[in-house]
């Protein structure tokens, strides 16, 4: 028996070792490729941006240095003169409200796809929802200009329908900025939310209904709590993207569109405008680092909330 066992163990042992080695190689590739990608396209540019913020411009050339001049100068202009703080506040306000409304628009659409439409139509409906993403963002913004302008399609349509006195001032306000951003974000948010909502165990909903819950109660007590992580991830994603966006604020917001905070430019637009005026890349990098820092804080806040939700749900 023993003698018979030995030759058996040899051939089975070798493929196991080979399989383990193969699996390890696969793991290494699986981890290595995304790591390399992140290092190349995220970490390295970010490090360059950080380093660039400490450099200076001399004789129209970027000169390596380890100077805090850019940051000190920005700090001096934070609450006075250039008032960057006000622009940051405007950006935060627009970004957070955009995120709120974007999720408010997208979540019911996802619920409708998952729970109302037949399962066989999900893929088609998702494709239709994502379709705007295949067109150029700039092109979409210019299209919105045509729609929202003073003499645009919306106001002209109202006038044509006999509502000459019902004219809206939309273009060059932060409302228009938000519209452009929501249009940009919606396809992404729909996909993120679809993944969350489609994965909710339908047995739980059925159980709630069997126990006498109304549709509203089943939504409020089962679907909504189980969507919370997806909702928070979507909201923080939308807020971060909106905070850093330049185009919608420039083309639809008119550079300094009005909001409840007044006609104040977005921080991203101020960065662009300053770079265009001074072409001082190190100072622009320092300003961009502040933008990145606020984004990281927003991301951390979103992640912390999502984590807390998970714990609460657990």
């Amino acid at each position: 028996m023993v003698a018979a066992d030995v030759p058996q163990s040899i051939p089975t042992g070798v493929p196991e070792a080979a399989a383990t080695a193969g699996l390890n190689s696969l793991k290494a590739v699986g981890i290595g490729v995304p790591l390399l990608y992140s290092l190349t396209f995220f970490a390295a540019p970010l490090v360059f941006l950080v380093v660039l913020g400490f450099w200076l411009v001399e004789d129209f050339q970027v000169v390596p240095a380890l100077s805090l001049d850019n940051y000190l100068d920005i700090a001096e202009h934070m609450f006075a003169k250039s008032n960057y703080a006000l622009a940051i506040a405007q950006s935060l306000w627009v970004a957070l409200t955009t995120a709120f409304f974007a999720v408010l628009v997208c979540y019911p659409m996802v619920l409708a796809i998952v729970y109302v439409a037949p399962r066989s139509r999900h893929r088609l409906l998702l494709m239709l929802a994502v379709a705007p993403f295949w067109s150029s963002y700039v092109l979409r913004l210019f299209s919105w200009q045509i729609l929202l302008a003073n003499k645009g399609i919306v106001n002209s349509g109202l006038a044509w329908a006999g509502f000459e006195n019902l004219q809206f001032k939309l273009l060059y306000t932060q409302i228009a900025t938000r519209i452009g951003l929501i249009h940009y974000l919606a396809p992404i948010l729909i996909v993120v939310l679809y993944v969350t909502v489609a994965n909710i165990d339908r047995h739980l909903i059925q159980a709630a209904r069997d126990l006498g819950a109304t549709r509203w109660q089943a939504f409020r007590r089962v679907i909504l709590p189980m969507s919370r992580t997806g909702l928070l991830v979507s909201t923080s994603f939308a807020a971060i993207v909106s905070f850093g966006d330049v185009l919608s604020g420039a083309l639809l917001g008119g550079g300094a569109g009005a909001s409840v905070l007044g006609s104040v430019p977005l921080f991203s637009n101020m960065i662009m405008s300053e770079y265009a005026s001074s072409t001082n890349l190190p100072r622009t990098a320092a300003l961009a680092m502040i933008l990145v820092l606020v984004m990281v804080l927003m991301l951390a806040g979103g992640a912390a909330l999502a984590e807390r939700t998970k714990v609460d749900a657990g």
Partner: protein
Amino acid sequence: MTGRKGKGSTASSTPSGSKATRRRFLGAAAAGGVSAWSGLTIFSRSAHAAGRMRVLCWPGYEEKPVIEEFEQKNDCKVEFKTYIGGEQMLQFYAQSPKGTFDAIISDAEYVQKLTAQKAIDPLKASDFPNLADYHPKYRDFPPLRAPDNKIWAVPTRFSFYGLSYNTKYMSEEEAKTWNSLFLPKYKGKVALFDWYLPNMSNASLAVKPNNQTPYDISDADLAKVKEWLFKLRPQIGVFSEQNQGLVNALINEDAWVTPTGDMEITLIGAGHKNFASTVPDEGSIRWSEAAAVAADSKNKELALKWVEYMSGARVQSELVYTKGFKARAPNMKVTEFWNEEQTKLMSYVPDPKHPGQMLVETLIDKSVPRGLPVKQPDKAWIAIYNEFKTSKG
């Protein structure tokens, strides 16, 4: 009058003095990265073959109707690297290997910065017979004067930062003064080209009419400029970094007036007849471009021929009518190449109020060449402009 940038140096653009080699090397490496970011064309050395030249310029010079004749006549190929803004031009020049460019188009006020870097050669005015056809103010243009009766560059095109307005809402009378912008009906209806220099300089002229040196002002006058701008803030509905944004705002009547100028050329050309532009009585800023030969050019003969070519009436008649910009030509014989409609649109018609001169000449008389802040660092002007933008409108 087209919104365009030719920026002042930043406060950080201070003389560097002697620098360690390593710093320079790192700087050059960084510059390479920066240049790549900025879209700097990387030229191959072989492109320096005879019959080729490279020009650093504003958009428009590379358009076929402008350059085709020169390339055919001289059996050569001209490569262009376009920039937006004088500051960017200086950076592209400083960050490129020596000899990369054979000729440079510079805003007049940046010529002094190029000469400080010994980037361009002085030229003999007598080498440019077309100058005889130039408007007198451009035949001998002070910002371009070089020692020994030479010139640093030859003017190629110019225009104004006056008022462009919708005639449905603004009368010719109102357009005569910058202060009309404060009228209550213009609240939220003024569109600004988003750049501190022309806006603050025009404000400087508004508070100190017909000042020939609106950039060379005291701190007290700068405070008045700031006050004027802040008063204007509630009237501003749009800040746009692109001309197209301003044109759209005017067409859609989201804005009725813009202190950018020259918009009416584009608008009327597109069939919108209800637009006009003018230089207010207090004066406005005028931008000017000029062609220079790069000091380290390896093809100076061809570069010189190109500068001479750019001074001609035929090429200027095309240059001021490009997709990139609508502008005016310093060579007054351009009208020979335009039809009646173009001549009228470009204001090269008799001025009824000033017999014996053309409307464009009146506009030249009323405007002041653009310059850079003199008594304050431009950083101080930018800070005021930012404060103006973030002040609640």
